């Protein structure tokens, strides 16, 4: 860590150290002192909102999907494969809309790396969908119903030898690998290494190394694009990375939507045990992201715990228990988890507004949940935002958007602790509508 006495700091001290560091980012070269000030002020907006103080104005955010590149006239394919075009598009979009939180170049992802590995988990342009379509998740039982015990025994081993060979066509030979935990004693180590000599396994490693290079190239390109925008415009790169609710890792990625629901009847205890097992991994993923990018906020999208997905009782048992531990683990490191609460959470509010989570340490962005009800429970406890419908941005008029945003601000923003944002990821919008959202927030969201 960048502070020597890091381990001695309390969660609140870590929080402050992270936010201070974010406020004056090492290596930033702002275009002018005015831009540097604008950056600092924007960080202050988010920090105040999160700590439940009244900022000078409501911070402006939206969940940036593929709209930014569409706006600039790029196809998704171009954004994924041509970093120069991507850079120009992101610069244009951010300069034209000026949200407080930067729309990042990284959304498009390192398609070349995925191509080298023959990723099966998604389809994307050149790989099964038209050039204009965003990537699409291919749902399947990448983990089988009878494999919970393997996952529980050693998640990393399970990923190496079962999950990764299934999702990456070119890593299929990894099924042959021995468990790396075999590498302990002289007589055991030899046989543990043998599979690594297999030509197919070696070819798989070569692909992986090449994919690593492609990912690094992507990271450098996107890093340079983002820095250039931040330096020129003073926008704030809001999140440092991702983590997941343990139940969603199981339900989204490993088992799939339908199978996880059937598992709830056939092997409920295994789900609970797996969520527990995945919790420290989820915490570590978040903290590592925050440390690596030196930015305190980590995004956690919530998928399969929404209203209707299970009863309240099951929500507590299967979803919330491990998510709460994940949140507490992240907060203890002074990192701010930003929950993207997809769908409706109207029946969950009393559960998630949990007094065990220290106030002013978390951030909750809602989709279809009634924000007035959120305000009642979250006021004085945690920062929240979101809710501007993407359907309105895609099909409405600027006037409608303006009215919506004004009403939202009137109803839930007055005491601070609120961030203006969309309810879902923006892949499609009328530019005048997105502009109306941001500009209404900028003008009407000023605190007296």
């Amino acid at each position, binding site marked *: 860590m960048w502070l020597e006495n890091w381990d001695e700091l309390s969660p609140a001290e870590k929080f402050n150290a992270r936010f201070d560091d974010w406020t004056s980012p090492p290596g930033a070269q702002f275009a002018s002192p005015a831009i540097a000030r604008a950056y600092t002020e924007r960080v202050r907006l988010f920090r105040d909102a999160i700590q439940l103080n009244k900022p000078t104005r409501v911070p402006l955010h939206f969940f940036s999907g593929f709209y930014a590149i569409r706006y600039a006239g790029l196809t998704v394919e171009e954004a994924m494969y041509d970093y120069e075009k991507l850079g120009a598009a992101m610069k244009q979009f951010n300069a034209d809309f000026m949200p407080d939180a930067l729309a990042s170049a990284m959304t498009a992802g390192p398609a070349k790396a995925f191509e080298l590995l023959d990723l099966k988990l998604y389809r994307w342009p050149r790989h099964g969908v038209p050039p204009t379509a965003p990537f699409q998740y291919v749902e399947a039982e990448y983990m089988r119903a009878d494999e919970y015990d393997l996952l529980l025994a050693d998640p990393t081993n399970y990923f190496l030898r079962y999950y990764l060979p299934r999702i990456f066509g070119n890593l299929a030979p990894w099924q042959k690998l021995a468990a790396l935990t075999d590498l302990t004693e002289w007589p055991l180590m030899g046989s543990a290494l043998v599979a690594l000599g297999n030509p197919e396994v070696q070819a798989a490693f070569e692909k992986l190394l090449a994919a690593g290079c492609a990912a690094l190239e992507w990271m450098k390109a996107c890093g340079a694009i983002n820095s250039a925008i931040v330096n020129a415009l003073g926008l704030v790169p809001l999140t440092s990375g991702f983590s997941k609710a343990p139940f969603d890792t199981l339900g989204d990625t490993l088992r799939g939507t339908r199978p996880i629901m059937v598992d709830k*009847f056939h092997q409920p205890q295994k789900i609970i045990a797996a969520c527990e097992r995945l919790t420290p991994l989820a915490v570590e993923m978040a903290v590592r992201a925050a440390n690596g990018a030196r930015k305190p906020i980590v995004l956690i999208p919530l998928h399969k715990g929404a209203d209707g997905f299970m009863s309240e009782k099951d929500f507590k048992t299967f979803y919330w228990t491990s998510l709460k531990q994940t949140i507490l683990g992240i907060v203890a490191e002074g990192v701010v988890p930003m929950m993207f609460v997809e769908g409706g959470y109207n029946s969950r509010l009393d559960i998630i507004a949990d007094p065990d989570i220290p106030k002013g340490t978390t951030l909750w962005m809602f989709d279809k949940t009634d924000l007035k009800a959120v305000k009642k429970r979250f006021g004085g406890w945690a920062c929240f935002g979101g809710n501007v419908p993407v359907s309105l941005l895609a*099909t409405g008029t600027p006037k409608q958007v303006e009215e919506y945003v004004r009403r939202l601000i009137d109803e839930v923003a007055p005491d601070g602790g609120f961030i203006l944002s969309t309810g879902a990821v923006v892949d499609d919008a009328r530019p005048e509508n997105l502009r109306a959202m941001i500009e209404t927030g900028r003008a009407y969201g000023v605190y007296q």
Partner: protein
Amino acid sequence: MTDELVAAIVEMRDGDALALTKQRLDDDANPLTILDECRAAMEIVGKRFEVGEYFLPELILAGEMMKQIAAQVKPRLQSPSAAQKRAKVIIGTVQGDIHDIGKDIVALMLDINGFEVHDLGVDVPPEKFVEQIAILQPQVVALSGLLTIIFDSMKETIAAIQAAGLRERVKIMIGGGTVDEQVRGYVGADAYGKDAIAAVALAKAWEHDHVA
């Protein structure tokens, strides 16, 4: 006897439900009564969903049970079930979208309520809807979709139905994820339904509307 199968389905004991079905078929029970019991059980499941006692997992498991029981029973059926069906409904997730959980729930609830449901699946192109409407002549068309980028797909689908001269013969409802009343206006559907229960209510209200 008969209550046992109904209870197994309603209580989500899928193993028991399948074993009972198998045993009953082995004992030469009338396959039609088995299907009647399934229907009775599904009505209870549907009611519990409506009142908020059951949720997605129960509907999904119940749907699975129906599929598996039907697979066991179908080979024994002499003639297709003669049960009186209500109006015909064509349902599908529109082109560009593969979300099907919501659509399946809507289809299941319509089916439980006695509608004759034809499910065209996911990522369904406009031509397919048009073709199937011409063949099946449904009273109701239900379009599902969760992504904002499919608003235009819905619009194109409805335009294609119009262009084929079939628009006046069907009532069209839309729903799913980010779809709302605003989108209904944009795509030109007759109604937006916020959930499966709304879908059933709409279909019921519409089924006698149309004399083609």
